Structures are given as C-alpha cells and as structure tokens.
C-alpha cells in the first residue's frame, strides 16, 4: 500500500483569494489524477473561505529557476530603481498599482 501511495504524483495548488487579483501559490498535495487533485485542493486549501478559484498543476510540469542561477537571474535588477513607478504621484483613486 505504501509503495502505491508513494507513486501518487505531487501537485502544486494556487488559490485566487476573494477580492484578490491573481492566483497565489499556497502549497502542494498528492493525488492520483487531476480531478482528485482539484477536489483535495478545495478541501485542504479553501476551508476558511480563502478562495474563489483554484488551479492545480503537477509539480513536474513546472520549470523553476535554480538557486545556482540566482545572481545572474536576479542581481542585475537590484540597482535599477528607475524601473519602479515611484517618481511620480499616484492618484488615490487608482487601485491595484
């Protein structure tokens, strides 16, 4: 039984919060198929009224950046403050910037 269980693939779960804009990664779970993963995600990650939409995706379908590449990937943007929209006033009635 435990051998069978270990072979269930891992899924990553993304929830779009109530009134939130985008899906946010909230955790992972094991499931035998996509449908089971979606139901399990509903039961594990939206019990406290967190979400209005769910995505599940098999973890092995995600291509991730590796920690070795952290510097070449992310350090170059560290000194370019002019890329931030902080040099002009934002009107108060413009949401979600």
């Amino acid at each position, binding site marked *: 039984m435990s051998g069978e269980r270990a072979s269930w693939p891992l899924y990553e779960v993304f929830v779009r919060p109530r*009134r939130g804009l985008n899906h946010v990664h909230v955790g992972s779970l094991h499931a035998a198929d996509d449908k089971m993963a979606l139901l*399990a995600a509903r*039961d594990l990650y939206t019990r*406290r*009224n967190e979400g209005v939409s769910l995505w599940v995706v098999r973890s092995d379908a995600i291509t991730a950046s590796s920690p070795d590449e952290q510097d070449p990937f992310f350090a170059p943007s560290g000194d370019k403050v002019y890329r931030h929209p902080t040099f002009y006033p934002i009107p108060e009635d413009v949401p979600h910037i």
Partner: protein
Amino acid sequence: MSDDHVYLSLTEAGPGPEGEARWAYGTGFADPLLGVDAAAPKGIDPADLAAYCLMLGDDVLVLSQRLIQWITRAPELEEEVALANLGLDLLGQARRLLTRAGQLDGSGRGEDELAYWREESAYRNVRLVELENGDFAQCVVRLLLFATAREELYRRLVGHADPVLSAVAALGVKELAYHREYASSWAVRLGDGTEESHRRMRAALDALWPWLEELFTPHEVELRLGVDPLQLREPVLASLEQVLAEATLPVPDLPGRAYVNGRAGRHGVHTEAMGPLLAELQVVARAHPGATW
C-alpha cells in the same frame, strides 16, 4: 456553543486595508439564518414541523459522527481532511435543524440537549447513516447514496413555507452537491479501478443498497407536511444509475430492508450499531453535565 461572537468579529472585518489585513484567511463569513423569521409559519402544525426537523437533523448528525470517526483512520491525509469537511457541513445542518426542532416542539430544549441527552429510541434518523463505517468503499457508497437523496430533498425544501428549513436547505443544496461530486468521483475511480477496488465497491453496494429504501418511505409526519419522500425515489435512482454505469458497477437488485413491526429509524427503531455510536457521541457531555465550551 454560540458562534455569534465569531461571526461578528469576522463580518466586521469588511473590505479595505483595516478589515482585510487583520485576517490571514478569508473574511466575509455569513450566518445563513441571519434575519430569518423564527416564528412558526401559519397553517403548519409546529409539532409536525419539529418532528420533521428532528428527523432530518438526526440523519445528518449521525452521519457526521460516522464521518468524523474516519479521522486518523482514512487511507490518505487528503481524504481525511475531505471527510472531516463533509462531516462538518453535515454537523452545521444538524445544529440548525435540531435548534429549530427545539424551538418548535415547546420543550425549550437547545441543540446540545437534543444531541446529548436523548436516548436511542428518541433518535429519528434512518438506519443507513448509523451503520458501522466498514472500509473506504462503504464510506464512498454510503456518501453517494445519502448525498444524492439529500440533495434532491433539499432542492425541494428550498421553497418550503418554513423560512428556517428553507434557509438550511438553500445552503445544504450547495454542500450536498459537493458531497455527491466527491462520492461519485471516488465511486468511478474505485469501481472502474483495480480488480480489488471493484470487488470492494460491489460488496459495499450490496451491503448498503437495501438501506436506501428507508429514505423514500414516508412517515406520517412527512405526509401531513406534504413532503412525501417517495417523490425522491425516481430521480435519485436515475442519478445513482448514471454514476454506477460510469463506475462499471451493476445496480443491485435487492429489496429494501424489512421494518420491525412497521417501524424503523424514523420511529426510533435502530440497528445494534446505534448504541455504541451514541455512547461515543454523548459520553463527554454526560460526564460533565452543564459544561460549556
């Protein structure tokens, strides 16, 4: 066991930076009975309505207890949480229905008194929900049978003259629709799965199918209230047959379980599984009478 303060603090956290930021989890909880008129509707005998709420409430209270017994025993962590969620949905319905029964029957009993201080013969649930848990296949089959029948019933009760029953049914339809989906997907997965899972599903169906008929057998209270459960039989069986076909499982050709001198769960006549279940359900409350938490 009052939730008022919880609802208040969560509903006060409205939209905007002040409210949202206080809670890591979702806000916007709503009490489905908020603002619902608790007076007995005109033209309906409050005693009948109380008896009916008690039947429906006991069904979900007892099944909730059975589901909660799966905690620490489920085959997978994910399924354990799922079963607990289903149990909590049913417990929420039970609390509102038992509270309603206590309001209407003139005894002044609250939900806790009804749940913890009644004897077995005063429980009005159908026998299907009290049977031993058995294996996971039996868990799936019982959920499938009960959820299909109860969803169909709640759909009809949404339009009931009693505003409380109607509100419970309106929320319950959504809950039971999920329970049915959960059970159906497992029924198909196990029925159309391995040789062993198919064999277990067939055994579970044969064991539980005869208890289904009781859910369609009218009690005199139901007939007086105009909520004849026999009307559910055809649509429920059609829905079950569809799921079983997809699960490659035959529809059992078995008669309903016999009544005892014309009496069964709705009259307080239960199986031998009921006593131990109630003992576990009631032991803490009876060991500490009057305790609050």
